[in-house]
């Protein structure tokens, strides 16, 4: 919906694909793929819509697949840009270790590892450096805080560090 909004709004439009490292609490490894649409609002300011698909694994805790959509602002300063975005998505988590149930007769059974899907609101900030022909590629760093909701009746915050690469496919 964000992407549609941006695609149909006024201004020059760019599309890009990217991929990167997704580290929950920095060190718990994962990856993220992205597709983004950017609409210039002025010479230096752009509205950005970004779709993410990602995965990470926190050993002895959980792994999660997630898909989320972000809407944010990007400000260019020479070859660099700075940005912030809010997002909303869903995550499907799976426990990383065996899960056991003890039934009422005291018998042990292995249980499923998948947890219920959760909502995933998020806030992301970031900075990037453009390079290549017509500055069509960029390296970026994006710290992200996202919430897993519901979790124990409230929401569990997660911190992540994303480092990746984006390449523009059209203008």
């Amino acid at each position, binding site marked *: 919906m964000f992407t549609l909004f941006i695609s149909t709004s006024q201004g020059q439009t760019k599309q890009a694909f990217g991929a990167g490292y997704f580290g929950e*609490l*920095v*060190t718990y490894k994962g990856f993220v793929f992205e597709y983004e649409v950017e609409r210039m609002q002025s010479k230096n300011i752009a509205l950005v819509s970004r779709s993410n698909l990602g995965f990470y694994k*926190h*050993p*002895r*805790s*959980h792994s999660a697949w997630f898909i989320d959509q972000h809407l944010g602002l990007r400000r260019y300063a020479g070859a660099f840009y700075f940005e912030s975005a809010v997002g909303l998505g869903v995550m499907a*988590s799976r*426990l990383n*270790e*065996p*899960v*056991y*149930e*003890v039934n009422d007769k*005291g018998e*042990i059974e292995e*249980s499923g590892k998948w*947890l*219920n899907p*959760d909502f995933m609101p998020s806030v992301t900030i970031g900075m990037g450096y453009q390079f290549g022909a017509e500055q069509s590629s960029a390296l970026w760093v994006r710290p992200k805080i996202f919430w897993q909701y*519901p*979790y*124990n*009746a*409230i*929401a*569990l*915050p*997660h*911190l992540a560090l994303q480092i990746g690469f984006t390449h523009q496919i059209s203008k």
Partner: protein
Amino acid sequence: MALLACNKEEWLESGDYFFLDHKGAKMPVWVNGNIESGVFIITNHGGPMANSGHDFRTSITFRELEKDYAIVYWDQRMSGMSQGDIEASTLSVEQIIEDLHRLTLLIKDKYNPKSMFLSGHSWGGVLTGGYLGTDDYQQNYDGWIDIAGSIQDEFETVAKKEYIMARIDTTMLKSKDPGFWQYILDWYNENPSPVDSDWEPYTYAGSLGGYVYDYEMYLDSTHIPYSELVFSSPYSLAFYWAQPTHPKYNTWIDHYDVIEEVKRIEIPSLLLFGEFDGAVPLPVAYLVEDLVATDSNQVYLRVFEKCGHGPHNEYPIETKNYIKTFIETYK
């Protein structure tokens, strides 16, 4: 790098790790140490909530005990790194006792231990005392290790108030901020009968040294590897920010009372308390000692002088020695 590899092995690779799934809660269980010994200690953390069983592993006491025995660390529902999205309204003392029984059966099934000991700290005293006095559950264990454990809200709350009132006058006289201490007196005037979900008495007891008697000594005794816990362990931010500690979630614990259950305990019991414990004051230890049905020559009360609420943190080697002697006697 070698240091990192060693740390990673400790928290993310050593021992057995699995989850107990019961009524929507996915509770992590870490079995670490000398599993081959066949002697298991199941630890039970305090709180409840805002706490984790994994914390015991930061104490030298339990790391040392791992050399001789298997130590079971677990997080109770809605505590520590426990997962799931259960409702707070489903929490009760009875429910967590039921969880502990499922865990006991799971450990027996997976490992067929030669002997088992049940240990609890603080709120873990309510849980383990309540568990052992329920049905025939104590037959699963060879001994009870109660570390500064409570058993009744009202008794603990009165003892805590007495602990505070016995110290506040002299503290206020020496203080540069007598208004702070007067605030505590005023609070008690307005709240003469607090309950467990009132956080204020715990804070007041803490400000009077009721948790840690000698903070310098505590820091020397207990080295918490913060970076390792954040970047290379099962710990998540749930431990810090996602446990429902707000009173609207934890009033279920108010008026807890397992006195009748403790009266039915007949197995050997080791009670480890701090002389200056302000959270679960020493009179609770004497009450437990009087109540248990265990032969008096199999009840061992050890009081640590100049010690607050965590003997295993302030006197880790002495605590380990008491526990080891107890286990070697009754395993």
